């Protein structure tokens, strides 16, 4: 924990729960009659309500993007490197809104919330949510906060998909869409990794067809395995090599199958920690939302055509060693934007950390992000 809060931190923050009573119709055909979204905000909304920036989170993310909840916190929010006074998303200028998405497990309505129809947790009865559903719920949140148009919608990975979807579904409601380390659709390989993760969860004996809450248990092993597989795809071969190499925990081989290599114990630790704080049904939902995302689908596979309604400017960023959503996937998106005559800027940032690079403030990443957001701020007069 910090003894005192860093000067470029948004400081101590507290989440709030926003309740919605207007039913939301979902892509799967089901309707949620009411729901909660947990939200954090940083900075101040200007009188014109023109300086708002929406942060969209990735697979395992949540509303706590920046600052600290208490002086006892070991770590700040998940994107603290990019959100704060003087940081790329400068809270001295922008009003930043960060939420836990529908279906999440950090306070927003999701599988572990009580289903009003049964008085029990939704579990597997919670509807499968899509990226477009999230964007729709985020638009309801914007209405509630009095934000007609976002200065920018920003996200990395699955968050970037939401930023892209915003530009198609609500073209007049954002000036900039910032899509970082993302992809216009998952590849077969991406879906395959997700399937391994889901199988790990659903084949855990403690899963009980998703009704583990009723049995007062959680599919901890399955969730741990899912996270271990996922985690490998977030790192690059080089960064794992540099961090762990073939280093052993003890001096010699023990000719057994315990975690002998450092990388094994690291993955186990990451998996275990995750399994204690994340809901298995939410993990299934999030990976499915990833699989289904494909805005070009309704335009016959032609992404440029799908982009036709968009009127915002785009910033697309990729990272050289990201093999989960490689630079080529970002370029696919950029090329479609060029074909569709949209305003777009693109850079591939040289960084060794694989997909995780979007969370790590390398100098060039910070410079570009800052320059772009600075102009977005000037445009709305802040």
């Amino acid at each position, binding site marked *: 924990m910090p003894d005192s809060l860093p000067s470029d931190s948004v400081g101590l923050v507290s989440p709030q729960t926003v309740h919605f009573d207007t039913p939301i119709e979902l892509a799967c055909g089901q309707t949620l009659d009411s729901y909660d979204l947990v939200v954090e905000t940083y900075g101040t909304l200007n009188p014109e309500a023109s300086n708002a920036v929406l942060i969209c989170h990735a697979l395992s993310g949540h509303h706590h993007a920046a600052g600290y909840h208490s002086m006892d916190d070991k770590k700040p929010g998940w994107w603290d490197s990019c959100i704060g006074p003087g940081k790329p998303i400068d809270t001295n200028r922008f009003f930043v809104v960060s939420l836990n998405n529908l279906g999440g497990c950090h306070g927003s309505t999701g599988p572990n919330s009580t289903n009003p129809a049964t008085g029990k947790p939704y579990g597997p009865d919670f509807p499968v949510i899509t990226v477009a559903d999230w964007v729709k719920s985020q638009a309801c949140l914007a209405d509630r906060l009095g934000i007609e148009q976002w200065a920018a919608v920003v996200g990395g990975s699955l968050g970037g998909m939401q930023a892209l979807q915003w530009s198609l579904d609500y073209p007049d409601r954002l000036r900039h869409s910032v899509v970082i380390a993302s992809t216009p659709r998952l590849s077969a390989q991406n879906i395959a990794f997700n399937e391994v993760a889901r199988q790990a969860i659903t084949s855990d004996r403690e899963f009980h067809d998703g009704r583990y809450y009723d049995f007062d248990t959680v599919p901890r092993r399955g969730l741990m395995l899912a996270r271990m597989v996922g985690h490998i795809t977030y790192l690059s071969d080089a960064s794992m090599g540099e961090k762990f190499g073939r280093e052993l925990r003890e001096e010699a081989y023990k000719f057994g199958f315990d975690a002998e290599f450092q990388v094994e114990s690291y993955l186990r630790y990451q998996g275990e920690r995750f399994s204690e704080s994340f809901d298995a049904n939410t993990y299934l939902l999030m990976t499915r939302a990833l699989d289904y995302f494909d805005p070009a689908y309704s335009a016959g596979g032609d992404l440029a055509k799908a982009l036709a309604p968009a009127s915002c*400017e785009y*910033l697309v960023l990729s990272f050289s060693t990201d093999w989960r959503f490689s630079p080529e996937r970002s*370029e696919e998106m*950029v*090329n479609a934007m*060029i*074909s569709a*005559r949209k*305003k*777009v*800027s*693109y*850079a*591939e940032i040289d960084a060794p950390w694989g997909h995780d690079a979007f969370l790590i403030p390398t100098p*060039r990443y910070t*410079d*570009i992000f800052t*320059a*772009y957001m*600075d*102009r977005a701020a000037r*445009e709305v007069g802040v």
Partner: protein
Amino acid sequence: MRPDLEIIQQWVQPGHHVLDLGCGNGTLLDFLQRERGATGFGLEINPDHITTCMAKGVSVIEQNLDTQGLDNFDDGMFDVVLMTQALQAVRRPDKVIEEMLRVGREGIVTFPNFAHWRLRWGLALSGRMPESDALPYKWYNTPNIRLCTFKDFEALCRQKGIRIKSRRVVDGQHQNSWLARLWPNLLGEIAIYRITRENP
């Protein structure tokens, strides 16, 4: 504004969709957007230039002409494709010019003239690789790997069936001089060509 850019901007009409190859810090595109109502993109590989473009609001794509070409641009999608002082730095200028006129109706190309009298004189007298305001590098560190003369460029255009709509010649300070107009290949330091495949 630099006289060469002043000349170029006159050839860009309001509403034109423009591609600037090697757009540098985006000065020209920024001007064309604000003053001429043009839209478009710049391609650049220098990280600092890319950041500056983004700060200015110039749409910039990180793309290397030598390795990536212009494959990602559709035929005829631009009214004008610009290339100022970069032709001599690409690996295959002939291919770049063809690609310019595939993706654009018209190309505007500027480059330094290797047959300018001072360069000829320098080489003849000293026997060393020439240097000038327009070519301020040493032979071993110059990015200018494909130097040519106005006559070379015009021969290439003829060979490829490309029509030169107009040519302006300026000196090292980018000034228009009557002497350079008289003997361009000897007295002109920088040429600005407007090229097309379309018939007059």
